[in-house]
């Protein structure tokens, strides 16, 4: 199965699903996940770099497929509860409705693009009155103080947060949080105190840093570490407060809402 998706098409998980179903005539229950993964990896290869957004979106869709597929493969399907059967239909109808809605707005976006392109060819006049009317121009700076200007500058120059990566996306790699926890539990009691920056300095992928951070929060929740931040936006210091005892089977919260 060749998945030949261009980057412009490869926008989100539903795009992929739509693409698979509409263009490739794929029955998702027949899809070999390993084929999808192979196709995906080829695509990534072609892109020359890993786009985290694409990667997480892919993980999301892959996990959705696994979930649906798993339902088919569950042992004892013959004994399946009528409620479960109904739930499966409901889920499938929901997915269908979402796919249809997704396709609808995808097509509308094409119209928007055309409208915007056309509109871009015209430039509005926004010149204002000439100097003959200077004294009648509303004083826009009425009420503007140096302090307000200062605040506006800070607002304009404060770095905008990077696109949010929430657990919606992180969920498929849940296991890694446990790994990160194990590493932290191994490392932190020995050093006692370390900045979060140093704790993550060896990590290359943003996702790894996030997983570390999740693990750290978990420890914090368990009362095993203290987090200190001397100043706003300053480094976060991680202090081990869990003692020397060996910790096994630390309960990890299920992040999947």
């Amino acid at each position, binding site marked *: 199965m060749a998945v030949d998706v261009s980057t*412009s098409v490869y*926008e*989100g*998980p*539903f795009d992929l699903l*739509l693409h*698979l*179903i*509409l263009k490739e*005539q*794929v*029955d*998702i*229950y*027949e899809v070999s996940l390993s084929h999808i993964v192979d196709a995906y990896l080829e695509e990534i290869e072609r892109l020359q770099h890993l786009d985290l957004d694409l990667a997480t*979106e892919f993980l*999301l869709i892959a996990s959705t497929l696994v979930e649906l597929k798993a339902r088919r493969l569950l042992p004892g399907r013959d004994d399946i509860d009528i409620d479960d059967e109904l739930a*499966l*239909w409901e889920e*499938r109808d929901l*997915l*269908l409705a*979402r*796919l*249809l*809605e*997704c*396709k*609808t*707005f*995808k*097509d*509308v*976006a094409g*119209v*928007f*693009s055309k*409208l*915007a*392109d*056309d*509109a*871009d*060819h*015209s*430039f*509005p*006049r*926004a*010149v*204002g*009155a*000439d100097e003959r*009317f200077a004294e009648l121009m509303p004083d826009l700076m009425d009420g503007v103080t140096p302090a307000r200007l200062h605040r506006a500058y800070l607002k304009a120059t404060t770095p*905008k947060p990077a*696109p*949010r*990566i*929430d657990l*919606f996306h992180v969920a498929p790699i849940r296991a890694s949080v446990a790994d990160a926890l194990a590493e932290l539990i191994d490392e932190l009691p020995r050093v006692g105190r370390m900045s979060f920056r140093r704790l993550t300095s060896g990590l290359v992928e943003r996702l790894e840093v996030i997983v570390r951070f999740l693990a750290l929060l978990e420890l914090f929740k368990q009362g095993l570490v203290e987090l200190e931040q001397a100043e706003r936006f300053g480094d976060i210091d991680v202090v081990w407060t869990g003692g020397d005892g060996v910790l096994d089977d630390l309960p990890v919260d299920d992040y999947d809402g």
Partner: protein
Amino acid sequence: MNDAPNDAPNDKDEELIVPDQPNPLDAETVRAIEAIIMVAVEPVPSELLAQLLEQPIVVIDRLCAELADAYAHAGHGFQLTKVAGGYRYQTHPDLSPYVERFLLDGQRARMSGAALETLAIIAYKQPLSRAQVASIRGVDPDGVIRTLQARGYVTEVARDSGPGQAILFGTTPTFLEKLGINSLADLPPIVEFVPGAEVVEALEHGLRIDPAADARG
């Protein structure tokens, strides 16, 4: 239609613009409309023109439509358009190469597919929350919405009354200007875009639970 400048001798200048409206009040009103829109920095609503020129809104709209026709007929390099609820002068689209050369940084940034899709959802479904956008696009729309907000195409219009009081987003007049339309009513009806039966069927087939699928494997 204003193709009548040849019908009558032009003893009055204004008649060239509204030849079928010999009412001098209208001529004065038309000229005032031109002057006001010329000094405006954003589209001037009919209501404001009506109020300033002490004319009914319908008269203003009629005169503006005639004026726009007259400009188009005369082949001017500018147009009078109704955008985002108001009238403005803008350059004729076919002259964009010259204008871009003049403005240097005149080229506008194009919107990404993700931005357009998100914008489409918000335009048709407003007001709605981030979570509602996410449920349609299947992707966290946070970054895209922030970009659209920064560009002024969407804004927070309300708070959800439910628990959590999620921010509800809607489109702005800037959005209408970006698309060059007068109001949301100018957008094509969404029903025109609902996928046809064959698409629904294809999707249904792809998602079917029917055990018959096993037989095909």
